[in-house]
């Protein structure tokens, strides 16, 4: 370097290096974003590819003779003892008159879901005048039939390696040829509770469980969280105690969720004697989990309110409380709501603490209240992912899609609320 270099020359000499650094940094940024998007894309693509088929289900058309003698022997209708299964079986036998022998017949019966007889029973219960007539109705096919038609069971492999026998595949073919097989929207997925039979299993029980749980969570954690944030931010004296509280709240936000589950088990169930597997307890545990999140978000929202507004109100003679409730809170509300919704979506996706409080049980009934046994969506996913039946694999993915859909909706709501309330002025 010569001493004669002017400032300008020095600057220009360094320019190339600076530009290279910037380009490198940009490239790294683009790469990082690209990799992130790629992972997300793979995730969504596999989910959709695996799960979308669960939203349709194969149905079989049967002509069922609602024989008065079978349903109501002696003219007396007894729904609990009436042999609807027998009616379904005889209609299948009628469809395939050539099938004989116990084993073969049993294989034939397995083409149709056990749900068919329930469907028949409900139909008769609704309208007893149908007794004695012949009804043509669509009943859900057994899950293996469904899997075969969706291509998840390979008919080409050896008979011993697949759950359907050659005869069964032939019958399905025959039904298909006579136009008695159809795929329809799988409404049962949204209207049924859990079941051991994949074709009958639905997520309604889990959805309602999650719904009741979130209701408890939001009803408790939002008011408590906001009140705590307001007190800590606006009224509490600054001293060693408030510092300690602040540090602990921040730490609580980072505590693994399963620990909260254990706490819930020990306190709410063992000590307070609240029912196991209940959305009430789940909601309480999730409240503990989301409280720190809401407090932290609310405090940040309160801090973001410009001090000039506070001073203006104080200067007019507003009391501290009036300053908070007339001016600070309305301005901080969008931020608080966003925090609450983000906390809620975290609570919705949480499964570990629920395992601890018994919400992982196999529960068929759709919960009707806060103390009924229930599961939650993420736990249902966990349960189904554990099931050996092939058809549960696609249902697991479908349940994940539904859960993600709810999370997306909640985050969308957070964005909309923030936009709407901020645009006000």
């Amino acid at each position: 370097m010569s001493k004669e270099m002017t400032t300008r020359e020095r600057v220009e000499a360094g320019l190339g290096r600076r530009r290279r650094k910037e380009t490198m940094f940009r490239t790294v940024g683009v790469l990082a974003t690209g990799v992130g998007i790629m992972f997300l894309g793979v995730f969504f693509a596999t989910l959709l590819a695996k799960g979308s088929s669960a939203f349709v289900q194969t149905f079989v058309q049967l002509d069922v003779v609602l024989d008065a003698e079978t349903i109501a022997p002696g003219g007396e209708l007894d729904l609990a003892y009436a042999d609807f299964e027998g009616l379904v079986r005889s209609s299948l036998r009628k469809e395939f008159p050539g099938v004989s022998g116990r084993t073969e017949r049993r294989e034939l019966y397995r083409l149709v879901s056990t749900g068919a007889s329930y469907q028949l029973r409900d139909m008769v219960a609704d309208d007893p005048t149908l007794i004695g007539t012949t009804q043509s109705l669509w009943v859900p096919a057994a899950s293996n039939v469904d899997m075969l038609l969706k291509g998840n069971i390979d008919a080409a492999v050896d008979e011993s390696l697949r759950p359907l026998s050659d005869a069964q595949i032939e019958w399905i073919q025959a039904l298909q040829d006579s136009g008695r097989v159809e795929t329809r929207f799988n409404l049962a997925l949204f209207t049924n509770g859990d079941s051991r039979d994949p074709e009958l299993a639905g997520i309604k029980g889990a959805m309602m469980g999650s719904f009741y749980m979130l209701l408890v969570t939001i009803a408790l954690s939002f008011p408590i969280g906001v009140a705590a944030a307001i007190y800590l931010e606006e009224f509490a004296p600054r001293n060693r105690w408030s510092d300690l509280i602040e540090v602990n709240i921040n730490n609580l936000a980072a505590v693994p969720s399963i620990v909260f589950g254990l706490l819930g088990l020990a306190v709410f169930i063992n000590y307070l004697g609240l029912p196991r597997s209940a959305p009430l307890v789940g909601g309480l545990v999730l409240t503990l989990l989301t409280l720190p999140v809401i407090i932290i978000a609310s405090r940040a929202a309160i801090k973001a309110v410009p001090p000039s507004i506070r001073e203006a109100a104080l200067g007019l003679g507003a009391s501290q409380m009036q300053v908070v409730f007339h001016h600070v809170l309305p301005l901080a509300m969008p931020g608080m709501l966003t925090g609450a919704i983000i906390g809620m979506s975290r609570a919705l996706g949480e499964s570990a603490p629920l395992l601890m409080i018994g919400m992982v049980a196999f529960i068929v009934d759709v919960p009707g209240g806060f103390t009924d046994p229930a599961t939650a969506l993420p736990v249902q996913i966990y349960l189904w992912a554990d099931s050996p039946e092939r058809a549960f694999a696609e249902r697991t993915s479908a349940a994940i899609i539904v859960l993600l859909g709810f999370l997306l909706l909640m985050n969308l709501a957070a964005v909309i609320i923030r936009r709407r309330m901020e645009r006000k002025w």
Partner: protein
Amino acid sequence: MVIADSYRLVTYMKMAAMTDTRIEDPTPATEAVIDAVTDEPDAGSDVGIELPAADAAVAPNAELGGQTVGNVHCDNAFMIAENVNVHYGDNHAIRDVTLEIGKKQVVALIGPSGCGKSTFLRCLNRMNDTIEVARVTGTITLDGKDIYRKSQDPVALRARVGMVFQKPNPFPKSIYDNVAYGPRIHGLAGDRAELDSIVHSSLERAGLLKEVKDRLEEPGTSLSGGQQQRLCIARTIAVNPEVILMDEPCSALDPIATARIEDLMDELCEDYAIVIVTHSMQQAARVSRRVAYFHLGHLVEVDDTDKVFTNPQHKLTEDYITGRIG
């Protein structure tokens, strides 16, 4: 708050340190003042120019700490500050300030940045209460009663001593609600009609009614800066205070908006006592009856405005108004 306060504290100390080094030329230059203030009051001549450093630098503290020169007393005094000291933590921001504020007059507080004039102003309606590290000693009385006594509710005090801030800070509500807020929280209006008339008369007196009467429901933040500041004044007088404190009310405004506010102050001082902090000496000369010069927390000189600007008694005052300290 803590962060804001410590920030303020640091800024304050920096300012103080800066001022220390900038007092450089103690030579009197009264003529320049007369030129700048009395002869051409509206010419906008800048008195804040820094003059080149002179040879004899005098430690300012040697001249500080004595009695306030001039006349701290006045006619109709009803707000009296005696030996007021303010500490921000370890920082002694205001030292032994004694000042009387009379009815129906404008008192201007001037002085270099960080000299404590805003701090003193905020003592008068106890806005310093919100700063945890601030400690105020001495007495400030309003109508003979100490405003720092235990039984004094700061809320009631602030209804009597209103404040207008440096930056226009209307609430993010409608123009009407901005003005109606004070009367509402203090329960000054019995019904809607009464509230309407308070809002209208306040806007009228703030000289804003003509411009906004057809859009009272629009947000206050949609107004221009000058209009916003007049809205803030309207909001303050809607509570009908006895004293209005103004903390550099025109520093964020253009000259035309400033002139309007100054005219407004002339009108308002027929009903209220006004204490204004200002950096503009022309403004002090134009609007105030009395001027108080603060320096490093000391009240150096107080007197009638024309006396201070034409014949300052204290060297520091003279240096400041001639532009040697800025």
